[in-house]
């Protein structure tokens, strides 16, 4: 369970990224966060695994108070939370398998990770993760040789290899074309349902959000302005989140009915 209580984030330059947030996300939920650029979507996601520290308030993740964790506590926390990035964040020059094995860094003895000799069980786990996103045959390709959609599947596999309780995805499809975006979103949704992983996704496009979300959270200037099931989110709700009328740029398929 993830619970924010009166949580605030103010960046060193004075910009407020999150303001008095009260939010509870239960285990196994599939949540989509929407909001204009700069609304604080990334801030929320990154707060959960401690990449962005709260400046005040409380944040409990699976019973641990994130604000009180030290370095090794944070590493421990992060090892149980998979993260998927807009730019994939793969190491281009190494193989797909090595990239996925990064998800095992916390569990494998340091000396083994340093010389790159992972235990068979971890390699097996990485292979299963690759299998899960149907890209096992690329295990020994260089990450840079893959297409965008394939890379993001490797990103998902890396997160899966952590055997996480939570997956955080910060605009995972923003660098992909529409059909590929749907493929990636479907994987995330299936994984969340089948493995019971709490999944939190930032999305830019409203039609994608309504198509996949069980629950939608709307942010505006760091403040929570909407929280409800995906089915409740109609055009009026989005206009209130965005504070303006919707345009074609807000949907992926240009004339999608919401």
């Amino acid at each position, binding site marked *: 369970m993830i619970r924010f209580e009166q949580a605030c984030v103010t960046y060193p330059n004075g910009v407020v990224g999150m303001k008095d947030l009260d939010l509870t996300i239960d285990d196994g939920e599939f949540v989509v966060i929407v909001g204009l650029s700069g609304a604080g979507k990334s801030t929320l996601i990154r707060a959960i*695994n401690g*990449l962005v520290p709260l400046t005040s308030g409380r944040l409990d993740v699976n019973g641990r108070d994130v604000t009180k964790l030290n370095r090794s506590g*944070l*590493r*421990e*926390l*992060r*090892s*149980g*939370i*998979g*993260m998927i*990035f807009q*730019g*994939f*964040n*793969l*190491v*281009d*020059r*190494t193989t797909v398998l*090595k990239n996925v094995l*990064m*998800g095992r*860094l*916390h569990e494998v003895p*340091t000396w083994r*990770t*340093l010389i790159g000799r992972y235990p068979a069980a971890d390699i097996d786990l990485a292979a299963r993760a690759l299998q899960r996103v149907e890209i096992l045959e690329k295990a020994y390709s*260089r990450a*840079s*040789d893959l297409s965008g959609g394939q890379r993001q599947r490797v990103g998902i596999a*890396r997160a899966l290899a*952590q055997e996480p309780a939570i997956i955080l995805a910060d605009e995972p499809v923003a660098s992909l074309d529409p059909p590929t975006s749907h493929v990636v979103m479907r994987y995330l949704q299936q994984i969340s349902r089948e493995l019971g992983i709490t999944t939190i996704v930032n999305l830019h496009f409203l039609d994608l959000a309504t198509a996949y979300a069980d629950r939608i959270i709307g942010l505006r200037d760091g403040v929570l302005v909407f929280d409800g099931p995906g089915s409740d989110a109609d055009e009026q709700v989005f206009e209130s989140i965005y504070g303006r009328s919707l345009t074609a740029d807000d949907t992926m398929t240009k004339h999608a009915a919401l």
Partner: protein
Amino acid sequence: MPAPPAGTVELPRRPLDVFRWVFGAGAVVLILWSLLRIDIKWSRLWDAPSDLWTIGTLMFGRMESGDIGKLSGAMWESIAIAWLGTIIAAVFAIPLSFLAAENLVGRPVAWVTRQVFNILRAVPEVILALAFIPLFGLTPMAGVMAIGVGSIGTLGKLFYEIHEGIKTGPLEAADAVGASRLQRMRWGVIPQVTPEMTSFLLYRFEVNIRASAVLGLVGAGGIGSDISQALLFKDWGTAGLGLIIVVVGTIIVDTISGAVRRRIVSGRQSATTTTEPELAITGGVLG
């Protein structure tokens, strides 16, 4: 053509560029002062071309093929000095370079490490060779040490510049999976920097060959020693042949090493191309 307006057209006044004038005048004064005060008998300059010509004909007209074996061996020794020196420098420069990259360690640590590089870079290898000769004798080992110590600074600088150019995405990913500092380095940084580092290492080896050929002139082993002996004893043929062997040997090693470097660099996928580092032009002794 339309007629020009009556009267003269007046241009706006040209602005006075003080900086340029001061700079130009300073340069002229410095050059004149040097020219007039330097301890050179300028009349000798007129004989220089003919002196050079004489020496040139002596050097390249009296070469003996019997010397080729011995001089090639000496050239090999120069190459060996350059290679081992480069390896020794790398052993120190690689770990230090991570400590000099501001994106990997804090600013204060990076600053201190860079000052170490700067000091090492300031000392010409020839001076280092002079210092090592009393310790190691007139042996190639003095040359190896001079090249080794002399290259730490430049290699370190080249390397940390590579580290600072890496993509931050993989580092962020490493943090997000809960990697430790060492693991972050091993899987987030090293795969990104290895190709360029290897390439620059080879590049430095090429530069060091020129340096080691020169070190012999002060007695630190290699072909420079043979050339300087030959010049001392006016054994012009040997000196000329030595010169040719230096140029040919350097070009051969450059060609092989350059081919390997290009292959390493082209094996990588990112669109940016590695250009030759600036030290390309500083020649050997300066590094």
